[in-house]
């Protein structure tokens, strides 16, 4: 469970959000929605502990966001970034970088469910479209089997068909908490709960 109590964040003179409170239940599917520059991505960074709230309290699975708990908090998270142009050759290399026990078969299975051949994991990223890369990164992160999945603009490079396949994969996850940031109407509708920023 993720619980925020009256958290506020400002960057410079810009107030991104003020006294924001929400609760995300285990297994929930929540989307931070709103126009660009309102702090959706910053909120995802905050959940990972890279940004701290100016005021308020943030708790993840009963662990308050602080230096003592940060390792434990990150160990239950998978994060899929908006920028998928990561400086690696292919998905296999990326998988080895983030996983101590790479589950290649599991990644291949997810890649197929996302509508691509399993062998794409070892295809060069520089020969792929943005949408293909994004699905590979998503498959790798989901294969980690983490309890909380954070997705920043997951539909950014995907066509409608691929978005639906991704929704189907997300729906098939058992007991995972999905937290996303998006301004895509179809994705926002897909989320069980919307937190407007």
């Amino acid at each position: 469970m993720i619980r925020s109590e009256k958290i506020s964040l400002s960057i410079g003179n810009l107030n991104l959000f003020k006294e924001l409170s929400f609760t995300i239940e285990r297994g929930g599917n929540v989307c931070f929605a709103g126009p660009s520059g309102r702090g959706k991505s910053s909120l995802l960074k905050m959940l990972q502990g890279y940004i701290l709230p100016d005021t308020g309290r943030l708790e993840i699975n009963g662990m308050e966001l602080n230096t003592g708990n940060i390792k434990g908090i990150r160990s239950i998270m998978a994060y899929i970034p908006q920028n998928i142009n990561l400086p690696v050759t292919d998905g296999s290399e990326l998988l080895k970088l983030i996983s101590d026990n790479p589950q290649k078969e599991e990644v291949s299975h997810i890649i197929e469910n996302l509508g691509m051949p399993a062998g794409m994991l070892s295809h060069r990223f520089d020969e792929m479209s943005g949408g293909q890369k994004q699905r590979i990164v998503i498959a790798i992160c989901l294969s980690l089997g983490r309890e909380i999945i954070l997705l920043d603009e997951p539909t950014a490079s995907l066509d409608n068909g691929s978005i639906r396949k991704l929704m189907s994969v997300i729906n098939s996850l058992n007991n995972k908490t999905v937290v996303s940031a998006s301004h895509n109407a179809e994705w926002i509708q897909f989320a069980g709960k919307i937190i407007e920023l």
Partner: protein
Amino acid sequence: MNDTADIGIFDLAIGFSVLAIPLLLFLYYRIRLVKDLFISVIRMIVQLMLVAAYLEWIFEMNNPWINSLWVFIMVLIGAGTIVHRIGLEWRVFIVPFIMAGLLSMIIIDGFFLGVVIRLDYFFDARYFIPISGMVLGNSIHHNIVGLTTYFEGLSKRKELYYFILTNNGNRKKAIRPYIQEALVKGLNPLLANMSVMGLISLPGMMTGQILGGASPVTAIKYQVMIMIAIFAGCTMILIMSILYSNLLVFDTYGNIKFSHKQPKG
């Protein structure tokens, strides 16, 4: 073996006359390097004359404290040059780079002078200063390349770092690709240099020893050892500079918090 044939003042002047060739080419092609050429040559002469003067004094004294102080000054200058060339903040990075240089020199000098050459007098200026100087001098260029690669990678391609840090949770694993890249780019030229030694490049130390009257076999043994010392030293200084800097460039949440200006030309 005979002593090295001395070069007289008149002969030195004749030697300088060969600079007329590049000078004429610069003038003919209107390349604006004439002033730089004069400044560089004059600087070289003045610096080497000063070095000759104080090295002669240092060699005469041959005092362990003075010799160690001299190596310490070389480490300071090396660390300062690296911080300046990479465009990092002095107050943050100078101490880690000095630490890396000092510790590496203690290990390298300790091993090569104490274990390999087994000098009766460990701090003998004839060995202690030139060997330390060759390792430190060579490490500057390779460290600048390696550390620039590392810090530029962390500042310009930080997405991968944060991606690994969240998804794996281990900061050591998150910085590993950047360290790998730094070591490859920093040390590759040195490996290439070693592999063509004797074929394309004639090593200065070996040539100097032969000119100084040593037997070629002894000169080659020293050259091989000094190349090993340089490679091991460069690797140690580079990796230690990175690891000591890492204590200061990340906050307790793993955020990258250093600032990096454009490296100097």
